[in-house]
């Protein structure tokens, strides 16, 4: 009991946890926004090449990007971005985290969108074209909205994955949730409560989010199907 007290109350240590939680959420959401944006662009570029044979160079560049990101550990990417790319720049470290995880997530989100779009029936594009829409109009009004809807559940998983993955950000000194737990543990010379509490906070976050997403999905499918 004394240890629990020390872990949370002494020196207002619970504030460390709250601060870590805040940073974890900021990094995750920021990264997700960047990831979705990058993912959308990559998907559009790659689909344009596959359907119309346009922008071959961009297609190969984006494929390379996806391969590199998916083929290397996220912690290494984070370190490269922090220690090499932003080495001399005077930049907020949280922002570095957002950018690094965003770039990482973009590759995975592009794969999610790609399979979402591939799951849209070919006839939808054909109907759009035969009614007089251009390729781009059909993408915008017909294919992407349907592909996006199909992508929502895996996108939710990506959200949950990101929350957990940002835990490695402590390595470059970002005060996210895991790092906060770690700091409290080293200050109190006790690992049990700080780490278990941290784990519980993660669990509440991921389970709560999964619940919300399930709920949204249900509402969505009962309206539209």
């Amino acid at each position: 009991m004394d240890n629990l007290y020390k872990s949370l109350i002494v020196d207002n240590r619970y504030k460390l946890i709250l601060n870590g939680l805040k940073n974890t959420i900021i990094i995750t959401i920021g990264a997700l926004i960047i990831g979705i944006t990058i993912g959308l662009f990559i998907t559009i570029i790659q689909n344009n090449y596959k359907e119309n044979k346009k922008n071959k160079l961009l297609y190969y560049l984006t494929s390379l990007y996806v391969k590199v990101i998916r083929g290397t550990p996220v912690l290494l990417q984070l370190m490269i971005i922090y220690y090499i790319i932003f080495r001399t720049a005077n930049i907020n470290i949280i922002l570095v985290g957002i950018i690094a995880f965003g770039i990482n997530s973009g590759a995975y989100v592009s794969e999610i969108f790609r399979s979402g779009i591939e799951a849209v029936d070919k006839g939808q594009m054909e109907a759009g074209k035969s009614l007089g829409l251009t390729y781009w109009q059909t993408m915008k009004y017909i294919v992407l909205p349907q592909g996006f809807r199909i992508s929502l559940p895996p996108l939710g998983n990506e959200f949950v994955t990101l929350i957990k993955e940002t835990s490695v950000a402590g390595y470059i000194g970002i005060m996210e949730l895991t790092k906060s737990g770690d700091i409290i543990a080293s200050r109190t010379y006790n690992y049990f409560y700080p780490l278990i509490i941290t784990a519980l906070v993660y669990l509440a976050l991921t389970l709560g989010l999964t619940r919300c997403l399930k709920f949204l999905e249900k509402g969505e499918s009962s309206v539209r199907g």
Partner: protein
Amino acid sequence: MLEVKNVVKKFGDITALDHINLKVKKGEKIVVIGPSGCGKSTLLRCINLLETPTSGTIKYEGVETINIKRNHLSQKIGMIFQSYNLFNHLTIIKNITLVPIKLKLMTKEEAYKKAYKLLDEMKLKDKAGRYPRELSGGEKQRIAIIRSLILEPEVLLIDEPTGALDPENIKDVLKLLEDISDTGMTMVVVTHEMNFASHFADRVVFMEHGKIIIDGDAKEIFVNPKNVRLKEFLSKIRS
């Protein structure tokens, strides 16, 4: 008004269309028949620019279709698919009005007004707010036809419109096609419904292995088929 000249379409080493020549006159009702895989769909898809011919030309009123922008072509040539291809994420009314609004052919008010009028005529008005998955196959196909008609095309290309339907729904769709035909619309229909074909068509095109084997007057062909291959095909399909 529509002229297909020496069109060849190859998919790898498959020749789906082998030097096709076909002239469609205004107001004609042409039925295209032939065994599975003979190139019927490919022919319609080439006319509608969903496929590019390997060689040959397709002209609409003297202009090569590849030089016509899609947004203009769709007001000349409409296409109906066997699988309807309604936009799954949109309600019926949006399915019908999206394209004329986005192509700036009509204001939103005009498009809705016209769509409701067409829906009303086909007794489908109560479906306006529904999604495609809530409709029967026959209803979906009739909506697909309305969606094409709102653009006022001059020719309708129709690929096995009843191929995926049960008898009750087939009747509704064929009835609608006849009503459209009565308005003087030029129509090219791929179908296996020989009863319908024999009283609907004034001209029949029989294809085999990517070639047009017979192209002639519907009455002669259905009442007294002389060609051996055609006879065989008809007896197979009727039995």
